[in-house]
């Protein structure tokens, strides 16, 4: 049953050093507030999973939280590179990060398989791609019925998943609206889960087929207003495209990044 906690307490309780962590949100509803809390608490040696690492993992990697990264598209959407990710991969700063690189189709299937309690995901994927030659998590199996050769990847089963959503009701049931990505799958695949929300309401006003995650399938809910900024929350605030562009200059330079981190994460308080 979801427990309402402060973001600080939820992260302190469920995110341990060395954990495998998925923070999802496909361009939309990216859990930045939760990511910043993880940085503030100085979590280390995390295996980070996200289809699109985006700025949030650029920040976690630059802050030294990550040991491994499992991902499928590591750019700043519409802008260019993730320079903190590149610095870690190319120059080992602040330390080397091991990468496991997939395609979106495989990652999406792996989240779904994790939610389904399966050990692996099967897809018609990676045909002719050289990704399998650099990622030993990509194997092949033969369909027992047709003989077709299909790709197989391990399912995603994070120790803890964190997602952001628009709202929860007072029982901790969560409504996700708009581009829903793999948020539901990330929560259901995880050992423990934290959902940050814009607000808590009396009634979700969800239609019968809406993407609702029941409170009893979630461990902790934390209110984090504008918790997805500078990404967006459909119906609440738009994506700050200007910040995504500005991030390019901030993240290119180690000192500029450190200053940004001091001003906007370490000294930005967060919740008690």
């Amino acid at each position, binding site marked *: 049953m979801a427990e309402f906690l402060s973001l600080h307490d939820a992260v302190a309780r469920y995110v341990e050093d060395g954990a495998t962590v998925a923070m999802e949100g496909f361009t939309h509803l990216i859990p930045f507030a939760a990511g910043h809390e993880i940085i503030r608490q100085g979590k280390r040696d995390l295996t980070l999973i996200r*289809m699109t690492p985006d700025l949030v993992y650029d920040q976690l990697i630059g802050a030294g939280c990550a040991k491994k990264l499992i991902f499928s598209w590591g750019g700043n959407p519409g802008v260019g590179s993730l320079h903190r990710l590149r610095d870690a991969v190319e120059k080992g700063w602040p330390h080397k990060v091991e990468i496991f690189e997939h395609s979106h189709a495989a990652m999406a299937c792996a989240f779904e398989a994790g939610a389904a309690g399966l050990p692996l995901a099967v897809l018609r994927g990676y*045909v002719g791609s050289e990704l399998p030659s650099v990622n030993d998590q990509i194997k092949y199996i033969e369909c027992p019925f047709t003989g077709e050769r299909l790709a197989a990847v391990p399912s995603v089963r994070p120790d803890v998943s964190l997602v952001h959503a628009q709202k929860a009701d007072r029982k901790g049931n969560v409504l996700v609206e708009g*581009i829903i990505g793999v948020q539901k799958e990330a929560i259901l695949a995880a050992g423990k889960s934290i959902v940050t929300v814009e607000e808590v309401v009396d009634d979700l006003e969800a239609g019968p087929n809406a993407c609702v995650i029941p409170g009893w399938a979630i461990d902790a809910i934390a209110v984090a207003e504008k918790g997805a900024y500078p990404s967006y929350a459909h119906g609440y605030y738009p994506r700050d495209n200007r910040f995504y562009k500005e991030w390019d200059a901030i993240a290119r330079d180690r000192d500029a990044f450190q200053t940004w981190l001091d001003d906007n994460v370490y000294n930005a308080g967060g919740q008690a």
Partner: protein
Amino acid sequence: MSNEYTSAEMMTVTAAKALENGMTCFVGIGLPSEAANLARLTHAPDVVLIYESGTLQTKPEVLPLSIGDGELCESALTTVSVPEMFRYWLQGGKVDVGFLGTAQIDRYCNLNTTLIGDYQSPKVRLPGGGGAPEIATSAGEVFITLKHSKRTFVNDVDFITTLGFGRDGKARDGVPNIGRGPTRVITDLCVMKPDPETKELVVVSLHPGVTRDDVIEATGWEIRFAEQLETTPTPDARELEVLRDLKARTERKHAGEA
């Protein structure tokens, strides 16, 4: 209105014309997205645009900066989860054409968006595959659009992120349930198509004012030209007007957001 145009506009308009009305198109961000939306706003009002963020049949007013902009969702017929997008709609065979960009392409249309140099110690790390590896194999066919230069058109890609026809042109042969692969490449200089037999890219049409030497200069291998080399039609006034309006709207929207 003057019919003068830039080479970038020539590329976008030509890429747009590749899409036929009614086609279902899985759209990559950037140049493909610009071309696909221009097609929708001109000759192909019923083209179905699908983005990997789960937005089905979307009609954005402005071009998205990211693949998951709210604009794509708000103007879509419906929005599905990302696993559903890749499993049911793409892998399930509902997509006629995938429209992709790339950082590097070789003579057999293999695409590299992973890195320059060696995988373990890359010279330049690029974003990676994203949706492209399966778009290129599950879509009925693939259009590719990118700017023409020796840096992008290379003899051998450093890494095959996404299959064209493999290092020998034969990688699709005998593979079940696979799409036709790339059927045309549109650049700011020309249009290319794979040779039906060898799958090697052949220039089939030069844009007005572009010479064979211009293309040879900008290509990292000995590029072949079709015997019946055509001249690409120039953009008409309406196409240019719609494209410029779209880009101006997009510029205003993205600059104005605080």
